[in-house]
């Protein structure tokens, strides 16, 4: 029996995973050295891994999912603390407003606003696409660093007169990665991601584009991310509307009471 759906639980991963890693150390880093010399792989990887990492965060994301059936737009508010704790509440659209997910060290719960009840989500529950988007669990569940799974080679590339730092990542022999290679292009000076192309068997399978670099929460970040599979009329776009790093968040928020409280406000 084919089990095809996705749960708010995945949203979670959004926080602790791909999106909510903050560039805590971005400011401390020295500016990129002279353009001709390549930086060390370590430096670039650290920068990428740390881009969204923080001790805690609070923000709002707008998500737009386009597929054959139409366009769906969601507004999500989220809080994170450390690597383990996260709380996500859907604010828009009205039908789903108040639906929330809580992740703690010892489990995952969804909050059903209509029922005003929590439901524990089995840890093994996986789904093939996240809320009908083009993101797969592979993107969202990524908790390991790029460094662990990939061997990276840096080079300079230019397109249309713009110079990019190009990081070509090939998975290590045993790394659980379905791609042949991922090619990241970063801005020349700040090493902020511009796009990432995913290849399998030498063919481009999908592209993730990072754009709209803005100052947010004291960091300069790409605030829009778009995932576009090759040859398909589908895409998923995520835009940070607001993001604060290292804010003080009370621990009581990450509890069942806190979840209920935050989900029911507004």
């Amino acid at each position: 029996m084919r089990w095809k759906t996705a749960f708010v639980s995945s949203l979670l991963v959004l926080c602790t995973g791909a999106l909510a890693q903050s560039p805590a150390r971005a400011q401390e880093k020295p500016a990129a050295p002279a353009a001709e010399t390549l930086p060390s792989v370590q430096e670039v990887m650290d920068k990428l891994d740390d881009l969204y990492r923080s001790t805690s965060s609070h923000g709002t994301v707008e998500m737009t999912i386009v597929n054959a059936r139409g366009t769906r737009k969601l507004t999500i508010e989220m809080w994170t603390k450390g690597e383990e704790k996260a709380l996500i509440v859907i604010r828009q659209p009205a039908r789903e407003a108040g639906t929330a997910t809580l992740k703690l060290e010892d489990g995952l719960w969804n909050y059903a606003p209509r029922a005003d009840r929590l439901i524990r989500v089995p840890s093994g529950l996986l789904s093939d696409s996240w809320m009908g988007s083009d993101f797969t669990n592979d993107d969202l569940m990524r908790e390991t660093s790029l460094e662990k799974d990939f061997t990276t080679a840096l080079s300079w590339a230019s397109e249309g007169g713009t110079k990019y730092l190009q990081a070509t990542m090939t998975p290590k022999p045993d790394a659980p990665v379905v791609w042949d290679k991922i090619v990241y292009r970063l801005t020349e000076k700040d090493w902020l991601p511009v796009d990432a192309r995913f290849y399998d068997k030498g063919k481009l399978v999908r592209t993730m584009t990072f754009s709209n670099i803005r100052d947010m929460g004291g960091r300069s970040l790409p605030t829009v991310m778009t995932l576009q599979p090759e040859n398909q009329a589908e895409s998923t776009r995520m835009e940070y509307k607001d993001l604060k790093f290292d804010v003080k968040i009370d621990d009581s928020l990450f509890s069942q009471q806190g979840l209920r409280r935050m989900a029911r406000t507004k």
Partner: protein
Amino acid sequence: MIGKLAFRNLSRNKWRSVLTAGGVAVAVGLMLWTMSFINGWMNAIVQGTTALTSLQVQIERTDYVEDSAIYHAFSLPDAFLTTLDARPDIIAATPRLNLYGLIGNEDRSQVARIIGVDPEREAAATPITRAVISGEWLAPTTNDQPSSNKVVLGEGLARQLKVGVGDELVVFLEAADGSLGNDLLTVQGIVRTGNTGLDRQAAYVHLADAQFLAALDDQVHEIALRTGDPSRAEAVAAALAPSIQQADFPEPMTVRPWQAVQPQMAEMLEVSSAANWLLYLIIYLVASLGILNTQRMSALERRREFGVLLAIGVTPKLLFRIVVAETVVLGLVGALAGTILGVALSLYHASVGINLANFSSQTSFSYLGVSLSDRIYTALDPITALQPLLVMLAVALICGLWPAVQSARLNITQALSGRS
């Protein structure tokens, strides 16, 4: 003249005539009964495997057949179900919405198949109410209260969730528009269907509740139809298809008999019928052997009689004809009697059923995970009724040639002396 002689011969030796014709009759009758029993057995299997799931005919959107995505649902045109109900070949029609979602509480949850049903229609079309082991089946839908927020769980699912009747459960699922539907349900009953899939995964809710959860107002995924005789499913589906095309559906629709819904089942039954032919063949062989032996015996015993006939001037050719005529009469009488006997017995078992429990220590049976009634109702059709008659008649005639040929070849002196 030949006929007269043959008849006189037959009536003169009643014992032999009765035995020979009786042998044919018993073979034909039992063969006929066995075939109708096997037909009935196959019907029971089909009914058993489809009773709770697809039933005998299913109506879905064509794209739902290929890809059972939640959004491949359709709206029921007004009075469509009533039209279906009005057809004489349909006993009951039940519309359903099939959803996959998470069901549970703060402590644990499970992936479940949430089936939105009209409780009355589902109960009329399936044996679900008989499967209730605790609590009760969903209450009938009324106009002012189409939904109830009640759920009837499969036994295994209830055990996994550690809930009983009266407990509350949260359900979460991705609706047709990609949004997240959620609701609070109260356990109304628990069912043990014998179908492991349903027992482990099924959560029956009111159609209106499911439609709300899935954001599919007034829509359904399938209409399952219960037809009387499973072997008629293909005919019913074919008869329905044109009227479905004409009905007011915006999307292309497909009407499938159970053979198309459960091809593995249909294939299995096809193999069974191939294997059944072997069974029939063995029975025919055994029966033919019996008839052949009776005729050989008869030929032997009648040597003296034939000898006398030849001695008084009957030509071998005439004797041959007389014996053939005798055989034809005996075979025909036997086969007809057998057919009447077999049809009568089959019809009797078609209405009363055969209690399988008499043949096994078991009192209940399940097949492919679905419990079956322990009664098998024989199913008779013209082919079943005629085939044994024709086959055994042919066999009886061929076997009857033995004494005929023997009679024509007889050596008079030896035959008269009674030595062999």
